[in-house]
């Protein structure tokens, strides 16, 4: 089949500057919003997709299963656990029991003194490195208690939206109005911990004036015990008001808890895309309907209807692709890494290749399905009827 020249589709775009602007900006808007939804879901899934070990047990205050920040656990619990539960892993006399405080606090850095951002501060003891074995100190060292030192995750800069130079080892950042020295950096690929600030447990408890901890994470030896035994412990000590679950179950629960949020994100994106599609259908129908006589003349010359449909779809695809690329540029520049806080900590919107791909597909879909029905409809007229239209 002989097609119309591509140039014809390109120049048809120039027929109405207003329509061109509408198509490009409209599709850009739709694609940006679709990308935002995809980046949100991807960022969220990515951070929850922590390789939560089945051998790690997390103990929280009963009723705070969804939010470790709200959880309160007696500070004496780790010692009780160590004494009453057999089968906790140990090496060189050190048990894998990590008491922790999780608290969201405002952070200021040297280049960002006015605008405050929240970061998750995790108060830890050195045992945290034993139970969270994916954490690697990449620079400096673990903070020493009593000297106002902190260690920063690799993603803290991104989630706070500050330059890396603000977070260099040896520098100072202000947390909740109090200066802390950066003494180390760490990585924990693919986990929420990378966006966190780690400080000595007692320092965080002192700074936040709290007497309780948030949770205890311990690693069991699966050959000797299982989560059931820990659950028995929590039942035997109802006064402690504890719940125990494996880290795997904990993150699975969280992922389940955030599942509906993802669905809402996708549904919102789909509705926006659908709205954009109907807008596009209208715009394209108006554009094509004003050219019915010309389309009839092209057919009288011998161009097949399919060739004309291809040209009209090309025209629409061109506009939405330009809009889509524009949207991708905006998304990569302004959305990527944008921190979103939720009760687990923070995660960054992830605008990576698959997300950009989803956005571009939305743009292409908009161009294709926005033009196809109006094109077919405008070509349903017989040629003599088309030639009579104005």
């Amino acid at each position, binding site marked *: 089949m*002989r097609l*119309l*020249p591509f*140039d*014809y589709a390109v*120049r*048809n775009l*120039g*027929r109405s500057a207003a329509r061109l602007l509408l198509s490009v900006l409209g599709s850009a808007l739709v694609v940006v919003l679709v990308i935002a939804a995809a980046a949100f879901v991807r960022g969220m899934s990515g951070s929850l997709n922590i390789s939560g070990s089945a051998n790690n047990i997390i103990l929280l205050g009963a009723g705070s299963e969804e939010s470790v920040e709200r959880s309160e656990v007696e500070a004496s619990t780790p010692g009780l656990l160590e004494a009453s539960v057999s089968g906790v892993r140990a090496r060189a006399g050190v048990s894998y029991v990590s008491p922790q405080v999780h608290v969201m606090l405002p952070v200021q850095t040297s280049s960002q003194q006015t605008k405050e951002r929240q970061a998750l501060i995790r108060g830890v003891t050195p045992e945290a490195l034993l139970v969270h074995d994916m954490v690697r100190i990449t620079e400096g060292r673990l903070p020493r208690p009593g000297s106002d030192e902190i260690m920063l995750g690799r993603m803290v800069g991104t989630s706070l939206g500050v330059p890396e130079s603000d977070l260099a080892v040896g520098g100072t950042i202000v947390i909740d109005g109090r200066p802390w020295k950066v003494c180390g950096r760490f990585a924990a690929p693919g986990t929420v911990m990378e966006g966190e600030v780690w400080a000595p447990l007692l320092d965080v408890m002192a700074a936040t004036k709290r007497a309780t901890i948030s949770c205890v994470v311990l690693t069991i030896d699966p050959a000797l015990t299982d989560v059931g035994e820990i659950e028995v412990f929590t039942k035997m000590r109802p006064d402690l008001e504890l719940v125990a679950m494996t880290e795997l179950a904990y993150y699975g629960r969280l992922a389940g808890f955030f599942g509906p949020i993802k669905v809402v994100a996708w549904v919102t994106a789909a509705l926006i895309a659908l709205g954009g599609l109907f807008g596009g259908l209208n715009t394209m129908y108006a554009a094509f309907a004003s050219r019915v*006589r*010309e389309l*009839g*003349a*092209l*057919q*009288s*010359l*011998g*161009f*097949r*209807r*399919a060739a004309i449909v291809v040209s009209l779809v090309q025209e629409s695809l061109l506009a939405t692709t330009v809009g889509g690329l524009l949207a991708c540029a905006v998304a990569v520049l302004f959305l990527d890494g944008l921190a979103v806080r939720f009760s687990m900590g923070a995660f960054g919107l992830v605008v990576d290749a698959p997300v950009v791909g989803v956005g571009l597909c939305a743009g292409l879909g908009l161009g294709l399905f926005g033009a196809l029905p109006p094109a077919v409809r405008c070509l349903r007229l*017989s*040629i*003599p009827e088309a*030639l009579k239209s104005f």
Partner: protein
Amino acid sequence: MALIECRSLTKAYKRGSGTITPLHELDLDVESGDFLALMGPSGSGKTTLLNLIAGIDRPTGGELCIDGADIATLSRSRLADWRSENIGYIFQLYNLVPVLTAYENVELPLLLHRMPGRERHERVRTALRLVGIADRHDHYPRQLSGGQEQRVAIARAIVTDPRIIVADEPTGDLDAESATAIMQLLTRLNRELNKTLIMVTHDAKCAGYARRALHLEKGRLVEPGRIGSEAEQEAAA
């Protein structure tokens, strides 16, 4: 055998309970090289007949053979190919593509034919020269006068070298002077290039350029016959 043969050619539209029959069992032969003017009152079926011959409409009854082929039996896409080979259509309102230049408008039908770019270029040039508009090849339709637009449209109709050229009131939207120029051009296509022309017109003066004129009334031919050709009178004078 005539180039165009219509036998009991009928076109009818169903409209609710009744039928409208713009063309009623029409018999017509058009020889190769003829220049036929179709006249008649509004609604008499002139455009309908022209569209059937041009293969952009289908008869509901009778036979229509062009160059020995029964075009009513062709599929929609075959018919499109057939049009690009055999028909040049000239419209009252030119129907040029507004976003293409005069040159590109004339080139358009050639894109349906396989040929080297150089030959295509030559053909477009020749057609534009023939209609006397070569100097305006890079102008867009909106930059041309009606008469000039119609010249470009004529160049577009002849560029593929079709055997049959149909024209529906080609001077209907032009002033007398431009109309005369267009009629002289069409006459040349018939006399010098031996194109078979069928032209619908309301204007007796235009019909005078044709070799013969036929009158349609309510979908039937009336009093067919030769009339005094204005072109011949001009040539004689």
